């Protein structure tokens, strides 16, 4: 009886999370064209994936994450956070993929084509 309950629950949860994953996948754009760098919920930079560039994130908060865009992929090259999970994550290029540096509250995600009305307000602050 208990065993049956376990498998029922496993099935229900799997369906739920599987459906959630699928919906998440469907809502994502097919191709990514921007890498969005957010620190504590605020957008720090919006980097075009088509242009190779580097961006020093966290100057305002006193943190250090060197973000690099190269050949259409974005990665964190260097960081002064304790675990360097952001560096070890490596390159991301598809929508839905993220690089997280939780100690710095930093998230890098891939977004699709920018809506025209928003394009003006957030110009990428390029550096390096």
């Amino acid at each position, binding site marked *: 009886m*208990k*065993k049956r*309950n*376990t498998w029922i*629950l*496993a099935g229900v*949860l*799997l369906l739920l*999370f*599987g459906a*959630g*994953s699928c*919906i*998440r996948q469907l809502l994502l754009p097919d191709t990514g064209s921007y890498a969005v760098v*957010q620190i*504590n*919920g*605020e957008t720090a930079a919006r980097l075009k994936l088509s242009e190779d560039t580097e961006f020093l994130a966290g100057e305002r908060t006193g943190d250090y994450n060197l973000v690099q865009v190269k050949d259409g992929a974005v990665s964190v090259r260097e960081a002064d956070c*304790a*675990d360097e*999970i952001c560096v*070890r*994550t*490596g*390159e*991301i290029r598809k929508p839905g*993929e*993220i*690089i*997280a540096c*939780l*100690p710095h*509250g*930093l*998230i890098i*995600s891939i977004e699709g084509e920018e809506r025209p009305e928003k394009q003006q307000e957030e110009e990428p602050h390029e550096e390096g």
Partner: protein
Amino acid sequence: MRKDEKSERKTAYLGLLCAAAILLGYVESLFPVFASVQGMKLGLPNLAVVMALYLYSWREALLVSAVRILVIGFLFGNAFSIAFSLAGGLVSLLCMSLAKRTGKLDGTGVSMVGGVAHNAGQILVAVAVTENIRVGYCFFPLAVSGLAAGLLIGVLSGEMVRRMRPGR
């Protein structure tokens, strides 16, 4: 069996479980980070936590969980990773002991609940830390892996507990 003999046995078992959890944490720290779904882990140290929960009670499981998080944290991590692990570990253990108390699930099911709850707790902390709801959407693919990991840990710990019931 005499009562003090039983408590001696328990102390020894708990020490063993803590040591096993710490060792498993080290083994797991050798694995690379999976880039596809960040945060995906097998949660091997939780094997010892689930075993403590089933051999004894949630108190002993809490002890093993806290000891392993602090020791692994000080050895291989930092203050942030300790806080992050504690969030996952505590939510996971809370949900597991509640699931166990309902008496409707077997050990495998309880462990599965723990795996998913671990993901949920950590995603909540990640959303709070980054103030970015986007991170929350990662819960779904992560929870699928947490479900599978929890099932595996549950089956393993069930087999282990069956073979080493104390006082036998």
